[in-house]
């Protein structure tokens, strides 16, 4: 079959809502677009551990600390599921991580903002994870099987993240005047960056149309953004907090994407350092396994 016929059959499968699996024929463009999107998604989970990890040692109670550790561990897990799903497309995790560390791969711009107060951890769970859920639920029905299945698992876990965030905000909103102000400050800081997580306005979104045709994407950026606002405004009202007035500063969005956000350099530096410092562990574990090859099988028998 020639490429045009294969492409036609591929699109027919997509239109019939069939799932595409790793060894099925797929257009190069589909494969490349998925690798780009899934790798960015995986990187975002991994870099996303940093702003919150910042508060693990300073969480206000042991309970909050245990919860935050569980959440950050989940993010690492989500990164692992997604790297695994991306590898089914014929790339290696090592190569993807190299691209991240070299600064040539993107990740969600949201993680380039700082977390100056404990309330920021509440706002991240509530707003950032809330926006992520809004983006991710339609991906559970995405046309690429391994991505869709990873997203089902991730979405189940994200709901805990959003609720624990709202729970932090609730405690602060019901607390002292200073705590209420802290909560409002965090909402003010995270509101606009959270809205930017849905990506540029539809008119400027260069990958959207093709991505919708391939059913990787099911709703446009603006549709999801609107829905998020609709859900979130009453939640803010319940907290007695006010949603900031104004409009999205797209210039800021593009600057952060270009690497000029408040924490871009710090985030990448932290990832590089962690990767470099862990190098000897990875090498040693591999050397040990090679030396004791099949040792475990013998040990358990």
């Amino acid at each position, binding site marked *: 079959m020639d490429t045009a016929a294969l492409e036609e059959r591929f699109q027919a499968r997509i239109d019939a809502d069939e799932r595409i*699996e790793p*060894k*099925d*024929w797929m257009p190069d463009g589909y494969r490349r677009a998925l690798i780009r999107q899934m790798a960015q998604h995986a990187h975002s989970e991994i870099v996303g551990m940093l702003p919150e990890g910042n508060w693990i040692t300073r969480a206000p109670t042991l309970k909050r600390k245990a919860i935050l550790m*569980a959440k950050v*561990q*989940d993010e690492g*897990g989500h990164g*692992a*599921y997604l790297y*695994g*799903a991306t*590898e089914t497309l014929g790339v*290696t*995790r*090592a190569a993807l*991580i*190299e691209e991240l*560390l070299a600064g040539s791969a993107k990740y969600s711009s949201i993680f380039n903002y700082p977390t100056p107060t404990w309330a920021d951890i509440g706002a991240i769970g509530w707003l950032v994870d809330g926006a992520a859920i809004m983006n991710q639920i339609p991906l559970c029905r995405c046309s690429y099987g391994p991505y869709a*299945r*990873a997203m089902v*698992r991730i979405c189940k*876990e994200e709901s805990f993240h959003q609720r624990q965030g709202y729970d932090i905000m609730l405690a602060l909103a019901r607390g002292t005047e200073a705590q209420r102000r802290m909560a409002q400050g965090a909402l003010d800081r995270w509101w606009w960056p959270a809205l930017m997580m849905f990506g540029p306005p539809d008119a400027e979104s260069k990958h959207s149309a093709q991505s919708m045709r391939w059913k990787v994407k099911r709703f446009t950026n603006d549709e999801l953004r609107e829905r998020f606002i609709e859900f979130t405004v009453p939640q803010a009202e319940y907290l007695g907090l006010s949603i900031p007035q104004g409009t999205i500063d797209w210039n800021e969005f593009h600057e952060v994407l270009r690497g000029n956000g408040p924490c871009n350099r710090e985030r990448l530096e932290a990832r*590089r350092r962690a*990767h*470099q410092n862990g190098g000897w562990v*990875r*090498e040693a*574990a*591999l050397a*040990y*396994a090679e030396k*004791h*090859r099949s*040792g*475990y*099988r013998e040990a358990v028998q």
Partner: protein
Amino acid sequence: MTESRDWPLYEVFIRARGGLDHKHVGSLHAVDARMAIEHARDLYTRRQEGISIWVVRSEEIVASDPADADAFFEPARDKVYRHPTFYDIPDEVKTL
């Protein structure tokens, strides 16, 4: 900083509860089977999703070819008589 070698890839199968089959849940990198099982526990059963884990090196999996699926599974297509609903049994006949 360049990674010399990535750890081998393993496929992970989990039995959710007693009486159920092990089901494929995803993959992970590990240096050996023992580490793969420990990492699978941390990665795939953080919320008590399983009571038993199998891991197998991904390169050991042998699969049918999706490109040949039509021809490969064709022999079963015209054998509807293998299903009980193929047979019309009179209503009067019970427990059959």
